[in-house]
């Protein structure tokens, strides 16, 4: 499997360098609540989570999307990222380690410019897929 270190090496089928996060601790979620402006108590307050049918608080979906955003902007400067889309498939429990991966699905031409269409994914250590997504990155 070919690794494309940056967008300059983009080729169909190539993989982006993996990004693996440290475990998500309660502190991570507190910082993310403040830093992202999402103060939903389901991510911070165990009692509130329990009252809504969850064993414990769990991570914001947008935290995992931000991790994927790091994967993308390590690979290409942020102004080149035209589209970035995710679906939130399953919940990310506390202490999860999140593995962010991406593959160049195809290189397309649009308005005379070459773009890389990426398939993106976040996966937990036990293999659970938490997010799937796509990116569209301008190469020229």
């Amino acid at each position, binding site marked *: 499997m070919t690794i494309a270190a940056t967008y300059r090496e983009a080729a169909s089928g190539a993989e982006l360098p993996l990004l693996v996060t440290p475990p998500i601790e309660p502190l991570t979620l507190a910082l993310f609540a403040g830093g992202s*402006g999402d103060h939903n108590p389901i991510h911070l307050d165990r009692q509130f989570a329990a009252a*809504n049918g969850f064993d414990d608080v769990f991570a914001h979906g947008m935290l995992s999307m*931000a991790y994927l*955003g790091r994967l993308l*902007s390590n690979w290409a400067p942020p102004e080149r990222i035209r589209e*970035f889309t995710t679906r*939130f498939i399953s919940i990310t429990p506390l202490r999860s380690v999140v593995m962010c991966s991406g593959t160049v699905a195809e290189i397309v031409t649009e308005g005379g410019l070459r773009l890389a269409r990426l398939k993106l994914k976040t996966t937990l250590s036990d293999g659970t897929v938490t997010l799937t997504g796509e990116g569209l990155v301008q190469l020229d």
Partner: protein
Amino acid sequence: MLDKGKIGAETEEREIAVEAGMLALFCQAVGETNPIYRDQNAARDAGYRAIPTPPTYASVLANLAPAKIDLVIGVLGADLGRMLHGEQSFTQVKPIYVGDRIRLRQRIIDIYDKKGGALEFVVLETSATNQDDELCATMRTVAVLRN
């Protein structure tokens, strides 16, 4: 059941200044260490007019400048504890930089249900426009309600 008559409802336009300190907190929270997001000189050296913002930051600006009445919780009357984030997309037209003043407006574009109403979906679209009246980003959010 959510009132489908609320499709088309929109928030007032809110405005927020993009601040380096808030961006640094976000970067700390998500483990982003790229100096272009934290250091003006590094951003300038990389060819930017100011510090650029990372890929999902437009949604952070929307959170930091909440509408007077939230569309899902306030207008539709959904219960926050039953709400999950289903999908999120960003279309970038122009970069957003530290120092920009970004105006945001959100609209309900669809409401539908599945499994006989056990799951309801609200599709929201948010636009982010800068101080020069340039559209910077369009965001699409799908909120899921577990009934």
